[in-house]
Every structure is written in structure tokens, then in C-alpha cells.
């Protein structure tokens, strides 16, 4: 744990957990986008993810740990950082030298965190309840219906879309930045930057598209 005791250690830990969450996001997106193309395939994959013991009892706790770690560490760092300048500037032109995204990771992060609360309430809590509390019978075909049902309310779709815009902003800075944190800044950095920007725009847009698609259908 000596690594997370230092500023650079914590920064690398943020990067690693961030990259891990990006991987999770990619996987989540790949499954969700299936719902646009095929109801059956979506149900099949969802059923696998929901009932495979490795996914459920190993990957899921790791994911929860990753999410918690990223958020808690993010808040801890933010707190420390704000303490490192006790008297604030009366005039501070942040936009002159850094992007809005990079300066407001804590805010985009808070929006994403609130959204995750909603998301847990929408999907994860009912799912846990279904499987492990009430122990209802297995139904491999319920997933698509549940998904579509959630996108009935235009209000929820709007919140969903807004959250993903913030996720995009968070990613635009965070994804590329995680490479810098891990010490990768070389001739490939431009390519990495283009890729991460592309990813940060396309994946959240994709999620919004899925929500709108089901809402409109």
C-alpha cells in the first residue's frame, strides 16, 4: 500500500481503476447495443452475465470495488487538492490554460455517481432482489422487457441522456489522462488521444441512442 500513500501512487491508482471502468463500460455497451439488433441475443447474453458464477461472484465484486475505489479516491484527492490552496485567487482564469473537462472532473464525476445511484435503483437492486432475496424462478427471456420498460418515461430518458453527456466529458479528459498518469507520453500519444476522444464521444452517444431507440419504439 506504500504506492497509494504517495501522490503519484494515488494518481496511478486512479488511472488504473479508471481504465478498468472504461473496460467495463465497453463490455456493458457491447451487450446493450445488442438490444437494438436482436431481442433474443440480448436476452441470451444478459442471462449468461446474470447467472454465471464467475461473473456474479468474482467479476461483480471486483467491479463494485473498482467503482467505489475510483469514487472514494477521487473525493479524497479533491479534498486534499482544495486544501493545498487555502486562500483562493480573487481572479483565476482557468480557461486560459486548461480545458473545462480537465478542471471539472469532480463535477462530472458527481453527476455520474448520482446516475449510478439511479441505475442501481433501476436495475441492480431489482435484479439482486429477484435472484437472491426472493429467489424467483429463472426466466431467460425477461431482460429485454425490463430494459424497454425502463425507457418508457421521457423524464428518465432525459436524465439518462444528460448523465451520459457528463460521462462523455469525464472520459474525454480521464481516459487520455490515465495514460499520462501511468507514464505513457511518447510519439503514440497523439494517436492515443484521438482514440480516447473518439471512444469518449461514441460510447456515451451509443448509450443515448439505445435509450432513445427503445423510447421511440
Amino acid at each position: 500500500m506504500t504506492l497509494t500513500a504517495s501522490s503519484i501512487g494515488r494518481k496511478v491508482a486512479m488511472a488504473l481503476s479508471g481504465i478498468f471502468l472504461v473496460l467495463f463500460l465497453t463490455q456493458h455497451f457491447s451487450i446493450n447495443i445488442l438490444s437494438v439488433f436482436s431481442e433474443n441475443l440480448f436476452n441470451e447474453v444478459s442471462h449468461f452475465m446474470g447467472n454465471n458464477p464467475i461473473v456474479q461472484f468474482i467479476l461483480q465484486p471486483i467491479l463494485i470495488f473498482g467503482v467505489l475505489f475510483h469514487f472514494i479516491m477521487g473525493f479524497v484527492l479533491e479534498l486534499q487538492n482544495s486544501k493545498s490552496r487555502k486562500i483562493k485567487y480573487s481572479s483565476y482564469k482557468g480557461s486560459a490554460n486548461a480545458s473545462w473537462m480537465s478542471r471539472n472532473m469532480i463535477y462530472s464525476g458527481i453527476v455520474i455517481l448520482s446516475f449510478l445511484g439511479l441505475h442501481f435503483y433501476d436495475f441492480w437492486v431489482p435484479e439482486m432482489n429477484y435472484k437472491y432475496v426472493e429467489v424467483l424462478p429463472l426466466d431467460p427471456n425477461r431482460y429485454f422487457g425490463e430494459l424497454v420498460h425502463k425507457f418508457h418515461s421521457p423524464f428518465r430518458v432525459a436524465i439518462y441522456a444528460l448523465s451520459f453527456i457528463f460521462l462523455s466529458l469525464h472520459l474525454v479528459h480521464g481516459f487520455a489522462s490515465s495514460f499520462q498518469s501511468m507514464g505513457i507520453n511518447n510519439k503514440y500519444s497523439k494517436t492515443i488521444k484521438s482514440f480516447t476522444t473518439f471512444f469518449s464521444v461514441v460510447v456515451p452517444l451509443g448509450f443515448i441512442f439505445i435509450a432513445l431507440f427503445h423510447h421511440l419504439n
Partner: protein
Amino acid sequence: MNLTLKVWRQANSESKGKMETYQIADVSPDMSFLEMMDVLNEQLMTQGIDPIAFDHDCREGICGMCSMFINGEAHGPDRLVTTCQLHMRKFNNGDTITIEPFRAKAFPVIKDLTVDRSAFDRVQQAGGFVSVNTSGNTQDANAIPIDKHDADKAFDAATCIGCGACVATCKNASAMLFVSAKVSQYSLLPQGKVEATERVMNMVKQMDEEGFGNCTNTGACEVECPKGISLENIARMNREYLYASLKG
């Protein structure tokens, strides 16, 4: 030109400071910012007001002593300059200019715009050197050829003037650009490579103890650095640090 200046006044490190407003007339566009401050101080003295304390020395952009936060930016609106190289032609008649000290917990205010940057010295004392004795009985300077590319990069990192603009600018008051410049200079040269592991561990430890914030890669430091020190150095330090930590 005529200007309105809002300047941070603080009698000493213990007292509370506040912004004061002053008017100054007939400023020549060819003046440097500090020359404008000289004129203002002469004016304040004739009015019986204590002149504004500010750090400055070489006035040619190399000593790193001047340290003003002007209109929300370290060393003011121009790029690749220190405050002493900022000229009044960058401003317009009638402008209001806000002047504050470099602010960070690790840089306590001494008086007005003067701050204590000895934290930087202590970081260097923790490891910013090559442990050779100064007897001159080392091997010939040309004994180890050094790749020009690496030598140039080491030089670029070494041009840091230790002014603290990176800390002042960073929204987290992080000193990563400063520390990484030194770490990079030495790790790029064979002479410094030998003790690279200990150096980076010790310097980062001291940096953390001084109360600087954490780096969040906003890149503001690189933009405001009067010597254009690159973020690449921070990545290099992260790498060196990771390697050193894993090596134990």
C-alpha cells in the same frame, strides 16, 4: 495609458490580507510590468503609502524570482515569459489589472506579493543532484558520449527556473512539473541515471510532505511555464516512480 490596479496587500505572513485599488497614469507601452510597479511604488511613497513588496531580481526572465499572478494567470497573459518580461503593450488604456501573489499552501505569503518558495529548495535538497564530489578528479568530460537527442531533452528539462508558476497555475497547486523537470534532467543523462531510483522516491516524498496538491493532468502548468517545460517530464517521472516503487 491609464490603468486601475487591484493589488493584494498583506503586511506579513500572520496578518490577513485584502485587495486594494490604485490608479496609475501615463504608463508607457514599452515598460515592463515590473517597471510599471516601480513607478507605482514611487507614486505610493509620495502619498505616504507603504510601497508594494514584490520579488524580482534579474529582470531578464532567468532568475525565477518574480512571481505575480496577473489577471488570473501566472506571470500574466503573455506566454513563455516571466512577469519581468511581460510588457505593458499587452494591456489597453483603461484596463483593470488584478495582481495577486502566487498562492499555495506550500508558498506562504511573506508580504504583499512576496511568497516563500523554499519548499522548492527542500525538494531539491532531498535528491535533486548527482552524488559526485567536487574534486574535479572525475573522468574526462568526453569519456561518455551522450545521444544528442537525450542531451537536448535533458537540457530542455533543465531550463526550469524554479519560479513556481506551475504551482501557482495548477488548480490543485501541484508541483509535479517542477519536480519532474529535475527528475527528468538527471534520468536522461548517464551521470544521473545511477541513482535515479533513490532520487525520484526521495524527491516525491519531500514534495508530498511540503503540502503541494496532486496532479490531475490538466496541463495548465505546461501552458503557463515561462520556459515551456513539457508535460512529457511528468509522464517520465510517473514512469520512473512506478519503476522505483516496484523495484523497491
